[in-house]
């Protein structure tokens, strides 16, 4: 029996499609805080669409999505933007750090957009924990792929979200870096307490998650 306040993500009766034929149908899905879920499936099965639905970038035609008890399908667009800033962290496939500002400022901006007071100390501590404190004031362009991925992970968790969504976060990394990145994000999940939802093709990731949602087979 799960405690309601411990549920990070709850989906019920979800249907979404770009045409009359639904692309995605999920009857029920729950993820507890600190739980790690891999979302897999063949290309075109709706993995990215699922990620966009959960992050509130698009809305389902039918069903509800609750994050930390808040039904995000009922939020107005600007409310959703703010909610996303506060409660969700995203790690992209291609990192997508803002190139004009330093690694540290990427983190401080994420805090600002989460409507938190930017906390430089906390950001530096996190970067230190991820082993990239020395690169705090560097522009993302000069970081290695592995360093950039760590910076992206730091930015996704700096504001203590309830849910972190990863969109193929390891696809551009070599084996060692990928394992390292997954290990880091899992450690942070345990210490911060966020649920982790990773959309992936990567078997290495799949094997390290608590549960797997196969959108091709709807498991």
């Amino acid at each position, binding site marked *: 029996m799960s405690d309601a306040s411990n549920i990070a993500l709850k989906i019920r009766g979800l249907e979404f499609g770009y045409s009359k034929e639904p692309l995605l149908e999920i009857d029920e899905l729950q993820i507890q805080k600190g739980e790690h879920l891999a979302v897999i499936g063949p290309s075109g099965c709706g993995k*990215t*669409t699922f990620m*966009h639905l959960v*992050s509130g*970038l*698009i809305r389902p035609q039918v069903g509800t999505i609750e994050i930390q008890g808040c039904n995000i399908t009922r939020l107005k*667009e*600007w409310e959703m*933007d*703010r909610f*996303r*800033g*506060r409660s969700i962290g*995203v790690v*992209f496939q*291609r990192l*997508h750090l*803002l*190139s*004009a*500002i330093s690694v540290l*400022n990427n983190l*401080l*901006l*994420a805090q*600002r*957009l*989460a*409507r938190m007071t*930017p906390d430089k100390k906390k950001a530096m501590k996190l970067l230190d924990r991820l082993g990239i404190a020395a690169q705090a004031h560097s522009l993302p362009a000069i970081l290695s792929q592995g360093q950039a991925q760590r910076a992206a992970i730091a*930015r996704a968790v700096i504001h203590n979200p309830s849910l972190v969504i990863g*969109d193929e976060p390891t696809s551009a990394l070599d084996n060692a870096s990928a394992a390292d990145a997954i290990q880091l994000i899992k450690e942070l999940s345990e210490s911060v307490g966020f649920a982790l939802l990773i959309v992936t093709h990567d078997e290495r990731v799949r094997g390290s998650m608590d549960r797997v949602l196969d959108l091709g087979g709807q498991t």
Partner: protein
Amino acid sequence: MNLLQLSMANLLLSPLSTAVNILLLSLGTGSIAILLIATHLLSAALIRDAADIDLVVGAKGSPLQLVLSGLYHADIPTGNIRLSDAKTWTEHPMVESAIPLALGDSHQGFRIVGTNEDYVDIYDGQLAEGKLPSNPLEIAIGSSVSKATGFSLGATFASQHGLDGAGHAHEEDSYTVVGIFEASDTVLDRLLITTLESVWLVHGESRPNSETYDTTQTNRPHDHEDVHAHAHADAEAEASEAMLDDHDEGGHAEHQHEDQHQHEDESSSEYDGDQEKQATLHAEAQEITVLLVKYATPIAAITLPRKINDESALQAASPAYEITRLLQVIGIGIGWLQAFASILVASAVLSIFAALYASLKARRNDLAVLRCLGATRSELFMLLLYEGLILTTAGIVFGLIAAHGGIELAGIALGDAQNFPLTGFVWAPTEFLLVGGLLAAGILSSLIPSWQAFSTDVPRTLALS
């Protein structure tokens, strides 16, 4: 780190493009600002130096030239007029006051004005040192003259014939500085003020033993009783035969200085002989250059100039009318220059638009990521708007600094002898309009890119990336 700082960082990511855009806008802004400041300075100087003078009366010629030379000391006089002719009008009931000026000589490019105390009063001239000239060949100098020449009280110098400093020196009659005026930011700063009789004396018209004239023809009560007491009787007793020069250096009535000296020699012998005859001759021959008239009644503005122009050999010119005409003529030239500068500004605004648009295309992913991080559509709109405003503001600030600084430097380089003082430490009211217009143009140029940022389709952009 906030959105404004992010906008700034985005601009610094392309320093060359940012610098070019700011430079373009600065050039346009600076060009327009220079024109606005110069026009403002000119208008302010014209109004200030007009000193509520309603009419300038002088020799026939160009009315604008008469006003520029008689009131602003910025042109060559149209010629001289007989004091006796001028007197007809100084005593007219429609005239409250009339101040005579005798021009024609200068020192180091600064003009010497033979006049009376009333002339100093209309500019609120205050003496920093010394006294006003009351005896022949005494002179008081303006603050700019003092600065440029280094003259202090007691300094003596010979005036030069003509107004361009190229004429011969009147070595035989040296002026003595007896007063130095405080800076008044008027034409007085650039003048050397002496008595009418000193000017006549220098031109051989009267000798030091002659008594003081009061050439002030004022219908209001006079403050200087002792001077007034000498008035017309003295004038008639004065002996001198020479006329004041025409002071025409630009192709007007040519001054025959050789003839004058010849004439002077002849008259000296006459002086020794028949003083009474000379006095009569002199009273008829004494000349001034202009008469600065203040009306006693508003109706005079309608009738008096026409009356003088129609009924005498003199010319009356209204400063208000002539200056309006002058500013209209200048305005046409300024209008063309402003049109050219406006094209520069328009190019700069278009360039800002192009830069923002190109940057938007390159940063679509960043905008999508910002939405994922919690930025609202409005915040993305503002992000691009800030960039446009930062570029515009920087262009305006640098342009204004360049314009004001340039004018100040030009003022320093040209020195105190220029006809209109140039200073960059003024703010033309029209500059507010310029700044407002440019900010509006900057906002306008950012609107399309900002709207596109607002409309960013995040899922699609992320999917494409």
